[in-house]
């Protein structure tokens, strides 16, 4: 007798259902109902094949499918692809595609769409796809149900970037031969997903109705999903309380309100469903300039930050201390290690003072060693409070910091184009694989003036460069994990930035709705299995 989990996985692989074990046990789904989501801010467009902007993904995953979805072990599971095989050298991946799938305009989905999407859209225009599919040379379509990916080097990370959120499959028929960047189907999308786009009233809402021809039989259960965009945090909380909205992911409900709201019967929260995002709260040094060109100074400041205080008092407990560049969310795949230099120690201030003395920055008569300007990343109130905390923590070790707060474009320009900063708070996501989320921040080839959210610290080393390059093409999971362990050790020693903590996003939802979070993609999931209890 197979156990329940195996049974479910078999079902999932056969495409009959796609639910992790715990989700199935919750009563029988009925058809009907409208889910109102709050999305923050309003998406600029619906062209998720051109932009990875978070709000777009929250809706686009409802109407675009990908080749795969992912389970909580961060393993790909079938979606438009029913199975796949990788050749021994890792350079050929063959996908078997689902039969009988139709786009929302009624046209059939086939391998030609896969070929077109990857070669002519994602590889050319997708902000991350340009990098993720860099070794993808060609996609063959020998028959309508087979797509063969040819790579010039093995690309194990590619298998992690095939969700409908990350790599949406678009219909070739409607895009081929047109200006992809200005397609008329950008904001009138035609996908294969469980919900069809109906209308977008700018500034108010988007409406998606049930796709009756969806390829998972009997799904989706909901009649409709509506996305709203309420700019004010207090109003969002109020609307959640009056059930005018039923779902808010990615911190749509401010952290300070989560505790209060979830005490109300009928409202709950979860931090699951962000395992493929893994944001890390950081303090980035400009390692090009004094005093942060000196590793001892960087280490000193890393020792001086009280991670637990920051998590508990500024982020209301939604986080856990970070040990290095790679999030502990990668523990299931073995890539993560905590066996690195530990800066999160009780006598941190003492260590910091000692290091600064050694580095040649003794306390002067007024008790200070030197002055810096601390930039605060302009993404909300928490960051301002975090800036104030950093100022106090630095004062304890004799560094006088002045806080500077600017708007998003000005800050981006300062950090990633002008390099005119000393120490800034920041947060970057690990995303689905280190090649996608880590290389951009630590490699020498990612020091690109004018490109945002890449290597802004200016730090790199030949050893870590090599480890990243080797790991990118290593198809043996164990060897690959080992390379990343070495990488983590070296980077944490050099501390080009401080990993403060792993930020947990929080989803607040109306408990009448079931199956809302069933995969590590959470809000970026298709919501085909969501139903409402009457």
């Amino acid at each position, binding site marked *: 007798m197979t156990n329940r989990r195996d049974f479910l996985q078999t079902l999932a692989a056969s495409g009959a259902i796609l639910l992790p074990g715990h989700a199935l046990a919750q009563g029988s789904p009925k058809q009907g109902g409208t889910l109102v989501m709050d999305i923050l801010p309003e998406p600029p467009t619906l062209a998720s094949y051109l*932009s*990875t902007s978070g709000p777009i993904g929250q809706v686009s995953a409802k109407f675009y499918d990908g080749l795969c979805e992912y389970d909580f072990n961060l393993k790909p599971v079938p979606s438009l692809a029913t199975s796949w095989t990788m050749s021994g050298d890792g350079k050929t991946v063959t996908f078997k595609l689902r039969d009988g799938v139709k786009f929302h305009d009624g046209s059939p989905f086939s391998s030609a769409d896969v070929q077109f999407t990857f070669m002519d859209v994602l590889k050319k225009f997708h902000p991350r796809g340009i990098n993720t599919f860099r070794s993808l040379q060609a996609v063959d379509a020998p028959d309508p149900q087979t797509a063969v990916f040819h790579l010039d080097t093995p690309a194990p990370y590619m298998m992690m970037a095939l969700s409908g959120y990350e790599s949406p499959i678009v219909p070739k028929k409607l895009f081929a031969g047109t200006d992809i960047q200005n397609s008329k189907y950008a904001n009138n999308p035609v996908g294969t997903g469980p919900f069809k786009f109906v209308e977008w009233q700018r*500034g108010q809402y988007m409406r998606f109705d049930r796709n009756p021809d969806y390829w998972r039989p009997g799904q989706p259960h909901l009649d409709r999903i509506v996305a709203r965009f309420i700019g*004010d945090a207090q*109003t969002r909380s109020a609307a959640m309380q009056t059930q005018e909205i039923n779902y808010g992911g990615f911190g749509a409900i401010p952290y300070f309100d989560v505790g209060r709201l979830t005490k109300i019967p009928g409202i709950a929260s979860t931090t699951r469903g962000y395992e493929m995002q893994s944001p890390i709260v950081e303090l980035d040094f400009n390692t090009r300039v004094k005093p942060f060109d000196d590793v001892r100074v960087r280490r000193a400041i890393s020792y001086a930050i009280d991670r637990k205080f920051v998590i508990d008092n500024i982020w209301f407990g939604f986080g856990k201390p970070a040990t290095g560049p790679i999030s502990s969310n990668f523990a299931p795949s073995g890539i993560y290690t905590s066996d690195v230099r530990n800066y999160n120690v009780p006598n941190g201030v003492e260590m910091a003072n000692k290091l600064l003395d050694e580095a040649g920055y003794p306390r002067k008569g007024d008790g200070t060693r030197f002055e810096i300007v601390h930039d605060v990343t302009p993404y909300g109130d928490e960051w301002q409070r975090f800036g104030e905390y950093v100022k106090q923590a630095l004062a304890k070790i004799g560094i006088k910091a002045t806080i500077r707060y600017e708007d998003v474009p000005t800050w981006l320009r300062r950090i990633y184009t002008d390099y005119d900063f000393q120490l800034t708070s920041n947060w970057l996501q690990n995303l689905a694989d280190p090649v996608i989320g880590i290389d951009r921040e630590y490699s020498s080839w990612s020091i690109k003036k004018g490109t*945002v959210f890449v290597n802004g610290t200016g730090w790199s080393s030949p050893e870590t460069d090599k480890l990243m390059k080797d790991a990118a093409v290593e198809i043996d999971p164990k060897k690959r994990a080992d390379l990343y362990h070495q990488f983590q050790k070296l980077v944490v020693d050099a501390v080009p930035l401080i990993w403060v903590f792993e930020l947990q996003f929080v989803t607040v939802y109306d408990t009448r709705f079931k199956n809302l979070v069933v995969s590590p993609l959470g809000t970026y999931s298709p919501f085909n299995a969501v139903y409402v209890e009457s």
Partner: protein
Amino acid sequence: MSVARDRARYIGWRLAQAVPTLLLIVTLNFLLVHLAPGNAADVLAGEAGSATPQYMAVLRHEFGLDQPLYVQYLDYLRNVVSLDLGYSFREGMPVRDLIATRLGPTLLLMGTTIVLSIGLGVLLGLLAGTRPNSLRDNVISVFALVSYATPLFWVGLMLIVLFAIELRWLPTSGMVNIAAFYTGWAKVGDIARHLVLPAITLSLFYMALYVRLMRASVLEQRDMDYVVTARSKGLTERAITYRHVLRNASLPIVTMAGVQIGNLLGGSVVVETVFGWPGIGLLAYKALFARDLNLLLGVFFVAACLVILVNIVVDVIYTMLDPRIALR
């Protein structure tokens, strides 16, 4: 007859004057917004949370950011003159269409606010001014002062707490009930229900201004010679107030209203944010932080047109209220 002709000629003259004014505004706006550091490509890529140099180059080229500033300016001028306000790359829509969809809700909120605030303001100001230092005057003056001094967002949130959360009489936010998709009269009623709280919030503040202005104006007028004359003629206080004092005291109100239109566009950003009202203020606010300059300039342009138009209307209203003011 000749009054009508004069009026038409005057309006034509004022409209002609508006053209160089608008050009000046457009030029100044263009230079001003380009002073802001960072550009739309930075923001768009920043929102994406990841980017490659190739992607950034593609964006910059598409937005025309790789062109020299004077070329961008000439392009923009050509767009304005042809009344095509350009394209918002961020929103993937022509600016004209974007503004068109948002102008309706803004005008609805503005119109309701103007009617409510002027109507109530004039009435309360008159009640207060005709009996200065009485209990009635004191109550009204304190009410006006409190309304004026309370921050808009706080009033908005308190109204939401009371009427949406506690009493459940009205919705918290938005312009229509999203889950229902009403049509016909049901939709009109639905929009009206959504309009109540934002309109009251915004009106309270402006009403306070008009109350104080009207009260001062009435106090000034009631000691004028013409009032003494009217009183000696044996007119009742009521007739004096409504036929003579009210008309004369209204001139500053009209002036103020003309100036307020511009402010109202800006002031409604707060109310639009709190109540999720899909107006033009919010659009401009978002455009600023996204460095969506075409859109921002488009909103400025429409606002400038609106202010110029309203001021022409105000000047015409002057002559109706007081025939001694001639149109020239």
